[in-house]
């Protein structure tokens, strides 16, 4: 495993919600302006901290959905951070971010964190992104970084999702997929849209062989989603001959 050196003290920073967007029935994108945001790499996450009037606090980590445009070139650019949050039933922080928070509200954040599950435009070789459910969020940040950098690195996203209405970023993904360098494949697991040739099913070796980069393409592969999903996909990739050292995973739940 290669190493990246990102060590500096992280402090809590005050952000302000500037926009909220419904992505699906249970997922929402929260757009923040964080004046002192130091910038981030696609794939990193941040901690969100909520404080009740009596001082009680709760914090959780969320993947950053937005690409950062590098050094600021205009008002606001470089200080905007987007989070896409899927509501966890019985959760403590996600229901607040999905149902309660409004534009104008403050939100404290700390980050960015994580230097492994990241993509940098200067990185060599094709990128294969494989996401399950809201595991698409950090992968979307990578596709957005790819677009922002006008990268010609071949990139493919395989997005496993229960049904069409559960797709997060549907219009953004269609727009990105129109690029010559990005391919997007949806793998519906419960219900496919009309006209879809593949019957609803989980990702299997056959699908990976037909729509993802092959071991000889030497991609860096990023797999993100619930643990059973990541475990299955990563095992299939290793069995297909991919170098485990080029497979990066991020799991939740």
């Amino acid at each position, binding site marked *: *495993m290669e190493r990246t050196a*990102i060590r500096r003290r*992280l402090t809590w920073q005050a952000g302000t919600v500037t926009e909220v967007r419904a992505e699906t029935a249970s997922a929402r994108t929260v757009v923040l302006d964080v004046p002192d945001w130091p910038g981030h790499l696609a794939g990193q996450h941040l901690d969100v901290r909520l404080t*009740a009037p009596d001082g009680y606090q709760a914090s959780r980590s969320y993947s950053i959905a937005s690409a950062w445009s590098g050094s600021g070139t205009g008002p606001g650019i470089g200080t905007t951070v987007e989070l896409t949050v899927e509501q966890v039933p019985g959760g403590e922080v996600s229901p*607040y971010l999905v149902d309660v928070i409004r534009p104008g*509200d403050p939100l404290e954040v700390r980050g960015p964190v*994580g230097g*492994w599950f990241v993509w940098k435009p200067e990185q060599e070789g094709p990128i294969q992104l494989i996401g399950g459910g809201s595991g698409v969020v950090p992968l979307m940040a990578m596709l957005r970084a790819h677009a922002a950098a006008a990268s010609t690195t071949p990139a493919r996203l395989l997005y496993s999702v229960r049904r069409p209405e559960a797709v997060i970023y549907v219009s953004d993904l269609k727009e990105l997929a129109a690029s010559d360098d990005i391919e997007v494949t949806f793998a519906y697991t419960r219900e496919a849209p009309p006209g879809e040739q593949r019957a609803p099913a989980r990702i299997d070796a056959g699908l990976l062989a037909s729509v993802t980069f092959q071991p000889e393409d030497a991609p860096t592969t990023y797999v993100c989603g619930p643990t059973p999903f990541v475990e299955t996909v990563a095992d299939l990739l290793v069995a297909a001959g991919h170098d485990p050292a080029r497979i990066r995973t991020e799991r939740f739940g």
Partner: protein
Amino acid sequence: MGIVSPGFTGRRGAGSDLPPGQYLTHEFPVLSAGPTPHVRHEHWELTVANETGEVTRWDWKALTALPSEKITKDLHCVTRWSKLGTEWKGVSLDVLLADVETGADFVMVHSYGGYTTNLPLEDLLDGQAWIAYEYDGEPLHPEHGGPARLLVPHLYLWKSAKWVRGLVLSDSEDLGFWETAGYHEYGDPWKEQRYAGD
């Protein structure tokens, strides 16, 4: 106290036996940076190298022939979940290091799959750390670090390296995988040492 979040009251009820910022889970979440290595017992080996380069080895048979202990400990993950009263079986590092000649202060732990993490040697001694190979009465599942993992329950769980294969003793402190990526070099949950500089 931070900036008050309008409309937030919190779920509470975490309990006083949790370190600050942690919540209780009854699940056993899995967090790792890459695919799960599947290491067969007959290929498994643990080595300890001291600061002069002298190496001590144990194969699976030798490890499991050593005196083992049952261990019941709380686990605290830097991603904020805590799991209480987990039950393990393993070999104390006091046993493994008893005959290793060393004056080193630091250890770099290496795993199958390439993961590394650093600790002070004193945190592995005096009944604080084990090479664990059973969880809840069963052989340790590969997802959770089987065949064997380091278990250092008093530090955040990323220090308890899964798929452990070697300890390298050193006079100077180097940084491991997550420590190089911005996490704390020590990782005391009770002091919330999550990230560098905490």
